[in-house]
C-alpha cells in the first residue's frame, strides 16, 4: 500500500501527539506498573485476609489511657512505656546485653583464657636439660690414664717379640 505524503504526515502527527502527551515540565506518564503487589486492593480480599488472622483481638489500654482492641503482635500495657511490647520488639532486641547469669556462669566455669605460650614455656622449663643433672660429671682424663695399665690384653712385650 502506497503511503501518500498526507497519510505519512498524519501518522507522524499521531506519533508525536502520543509522545508529547505531557509537556517537558509536567510529570511524565508513570507507565505500566512494574513488580508484584501494591495494586488496588478489593474490599473482599481485605476481608478475607483479615479473617485469616489467627489471634482474636483483645481489649487493652491504648496510649491515651483509654481502651481499644488490638490484633496480633502488640502486647503489654500500651499506656505505660515501660510495659509496652511493640510489634517490632523481636527485631529491636539487641544481642549486646549484660546477662547476670551468664557473667556469673563464666566466673564459675573458670578460666576463659589460657595463655598457651606460657603453658608450653612452663612445660619446657620443667624438662629442660639446664635444670636436670644430664651433663656428665667432669672427669680428669689425665689421672685416669695414669692409673690405667698400659697393656690390658695380658700379653707381655717379650711374648710378642719372642725373647725368652
Amino acid at each position: 500500500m502506497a503511503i501518500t505524503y498526507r497519510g505519512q504526515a498524519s501518522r507522524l502527527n499521531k506519533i508525536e501527539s502520543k509522545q508529547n502527551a505531557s509537556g517537558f515540565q509536567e510529570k511524565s506518564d508513570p507507565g505500566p506498573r512494574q513488580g508484584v503487589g501494591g495494586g488496588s486492593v478489593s474490599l473482599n480480599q481485605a476481608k478475607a485476609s483479615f479473617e485469616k488472622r489467627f489471634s482474636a483481638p483483645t481489649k487493652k489500654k491504648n496510649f491515651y489511657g483509654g481502651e481499644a482492641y488490638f490484633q496480633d503482635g502488640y502486647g503489654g500495657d500500651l499506656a505505660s512505656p515501660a510495659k509496652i511490647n511493640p510489634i517490632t520488639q523481636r527485631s529491636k532486641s539487641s544481642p549486646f546485653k549484660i546477662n547476670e547469669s551468664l557473667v556469673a556462669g563464666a566466673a564459675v566455669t573458670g578460666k576463659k583464657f589460657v595463655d598457651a605460650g606460657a603453658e608450653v614455656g612452663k612445660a619446657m622449663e620443667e624438662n629442660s636439660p639446664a635444670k636436670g643433672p644430664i651433663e656428665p660429671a667432669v672427669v680428669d682424663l689425665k689421672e685416669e690414664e695414669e692409673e690405667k695399665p698400659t697393656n690390658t690384653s695380658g700379653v707381655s712385650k717379650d711374648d710378642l717379640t719372642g725373647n725368652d
Partner: protein
Amino acid sequence: MAFSLKPHSEVFGIHEKTSQFGTPVILKDDLEEGVEAEANRDGTIFVNSKLSEKKIEEAVEHEKVHLDQIASGRLQYSADSVTWKRDTKSPARVYSRATMNEGHPDFEWEDEAYKQS
C-alpha cells in the same frame, strides 16, 4: 482547673541521670530474664528498671562501649546475625544469633566492654 504535668522522663520512662543527647537510657521491666541492660543500634539503651542506681550506672557504662563499637563500624547486628570486626586489618566475622549465647563475656566485643567499663 489546675493540673500538674509529669516530667517527660517519667512519661517516657527515661533514666535522666545517665541519659545523654542521642543515647537515652530507657527503663524497661520486660527485658528477658537475667538481662540487666542492652544496647540498641539506634543509640538507645534499655535498662532493667529493677536494678539499683549503682548497677544502672555500671550497666550503662558497659553498654556505652557497645554503642561506641557500633558507631566506629566494628560491631553491628541484625535480626539474625552479629557482625564483628576487631580492627581495620582483621576480617569481619558474622555470628548467627540463633546459635550464639548472646551477652556471653567470652565474645571479643563483650570482653572489650568489660575491660573498658
